[in-house]
């Protein structure tokens, strides 16, 4: 069952997932949904890693994938903590309220 699934398929799937995630980050105002969209983007990267691992024939890609999972977990934990902090401070979690960067 080595090359049954061509890598192009995985690539296209990964890209589609990535752009769905990116679109989620861009179009949603809710910080939690934004975070979930980021998880989607990370997953598309994971898929690429796994597929590439398959393609080149060693497990490095899968190892990387597990590191990405770790990072995703950390990101989710801290991101959600920030969501809570922001909620405490502003009373809601809409992204358009976070405009401190305005020049």
């Amino acid at each position, binding site marked *: 069952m080595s090359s049954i699934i061509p890598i192009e398929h995985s690539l296209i799937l990964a890209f589609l997932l990535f752009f769905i995630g990116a679109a989620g980050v*861009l179009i949603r105002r809710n910080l939690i949904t934004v975070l979930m969209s980021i998880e989607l983007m990370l997953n598309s990267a994971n898929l690429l890693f796994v597929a590439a691992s398959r393609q080149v024939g060693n497990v490095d890609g899968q190892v990387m994938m597990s590191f990405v999972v770790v990072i995703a977990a950390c990101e989710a934990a801290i991101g959600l903590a920030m969501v809570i902090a922001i909620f405490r401070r502003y009373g809601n979690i809409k992204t358009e309220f976070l405009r401190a960067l305005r020049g």
Partner: protein
Amino acid sequence: MIWMVLAFPLLGALLNGFLLPRRSKFLSHGVAVAAVGSAFLCACSVFLDFFAARRPQLHFGFEWLRAGKFVAPFELAVDQLSGLMILIITGIGTLIHIYAGGYMKEEETTYRFFAYLNLFIFMMLLLVLGNNLLVMFVGWEGVGLCSYLLIGYWFQEEANAKAGMKAFLVNRIGDIGFLIGIFLTFRHFGTVSFTELSSWINLMTTLPDPYPKAIFWITLSFFIGACGKSAQLPLYVWLPDAMAGPTPVSALIHAATMVTAGIFMMTRMSFFYYAAPDTMLIVAFVGAFTALFAATIALVQTDIKKVLAYSTVSQLGYMVLACGVGAFDAGVFHLLTHACFKALLFLGAGSVIFAMHHEQDMRRMGGLRKHLPITHAVMLIGVLAIIGVPGFSGFFSKDEILWKAFIFPTYGPILWGVGFLAAGCTAFYMVRLLCLTFYGPSYQDPHAHHHHHEPHETPWYMWAPLVILAFLSVAVGYLGVPDFLAHLVGGRNLFASYLEGLVYIPTSARSAWTHLHAEHAHSLEWGLMLTSVAWVTLAAGTAVFCYVNRPVRGIAGFLGAHFPRVHQLLLDKYRVDECYQQKIVTPLAEISTFLWQLFDVRILNGCVNWVGYLLMGTSGIASFRMTGSLHRYGFWVLAGTVGILVFSCF
């Protein structure tokens, strides 16, 4: 032994300043007196050693400062001059320390007072003993510091603090002159040691042009320093204000020792001054006019200490005049006699003030002879000494100066005339002081009576130093009996011969000097002396006539009625202080405020901030896309990434 002379006062100062605070007053007084007294004994021993050897002795301590070619060892020199000075300083210092214990009895913080006083003695000794300009300068500024601290001893009063500051600052002007003198000396001679400098000068006099311009500037700079310390025109203004300090301080620092540092310094460097005839002329004229100027102010002052202060300025003028006409020995001799009788007068005035419960206005005194018999007696001796009554010390020293001025080849008679006038003024105001204080009826403030007791004589440890000083005021004069008088009894001027080896006179100048002496007959000297005795008697008699048994209003009545404007001008001390304030201090303060508020804050800081605002303005224009919306930022990041990806593929 020489180190002990320095160590004792320093130890006393440290003990009093840091270890003994708030212990018993008796203890701090005892420590202070013991310190100075031991220093005096050591100084005697040092002096005797030197006297036996008759050769200047150098004591090398350690190398204090070396940088580049500049070397300043911490080295002390005992010679005729410094040997004499340490005796004066520690001797009179001891007497005044003893006296001060009584005077400062009611003070809370005597330890502070005695710490300063001991420190002063240390610094003064350093000044006179140092064998190079730098060590001398340490003492020079050190005594200024002590003077500052002591003038402001009663710091709770704003005026005292201000007077102290004024003294320090005016002295600093002089000190800058001194500093520039050091720089010039180093520039031209590459050394600051007195021994090396004098041998340089020895060499130079053999050169074809023995008086280079540089020496003129060097001596002039040092003279500016002397003007500051010795209160000469135009820097004398600090000394009268310095009377804000306790009276023993006025006696020790502002009469007997510190203010004579300028004369000491010029004598120390007489080898320079002999090589700079132009400076000598300036020095002589400044001295003569200061003598007269201050004496005229003293004529009308009503504060007993102010009279004595201006008198000090005037007497210092005499000493400077002596230096200016090349009679350094006469100057130093007057320094010695003046130290005795002026310390006596100040301490006497202190006793009067003490007895009058810190009343200093002479118009409220009078008739104190009955209450203060001893003080009266010693003050009388002091006054007779200062006005130059024959037989008292002032007579010998002052007449010597006037004589040397008269025979000075350039403008000699003019200098003599100015000094002669000042001598008359001196006689007048000193007798006036005596009359107003001790004779006539009492003019004490009647309101003061109900809580003040009658004035009474001071305790023994206050009048005993006065008696010793009174004895000295008479006795030291006989050390320096002028040659022509001494010849009558087969002697010679002991003091001049004592100083001879020190006051080095370049060969060329020396020949001119001896020539001068030969030219004038003794008859002229006798004539001048008798003239001045007559003049002094006349002036003193006028004062007695004007002030004994006359109502107080008579003072103003006599001068004020006939010459009101002159009287007012003298009372206002020629308005010099006001002039300085108006012409120098106020404009400087205005410049300062201008520089700060306008130039610094508005212009310089404004420029810097303007750059900042400019940048902020431009960045505001450039940042129109900075909406703060995360979505837009994210979109552009993404679009950019994709753009780059796509671009890189084709």
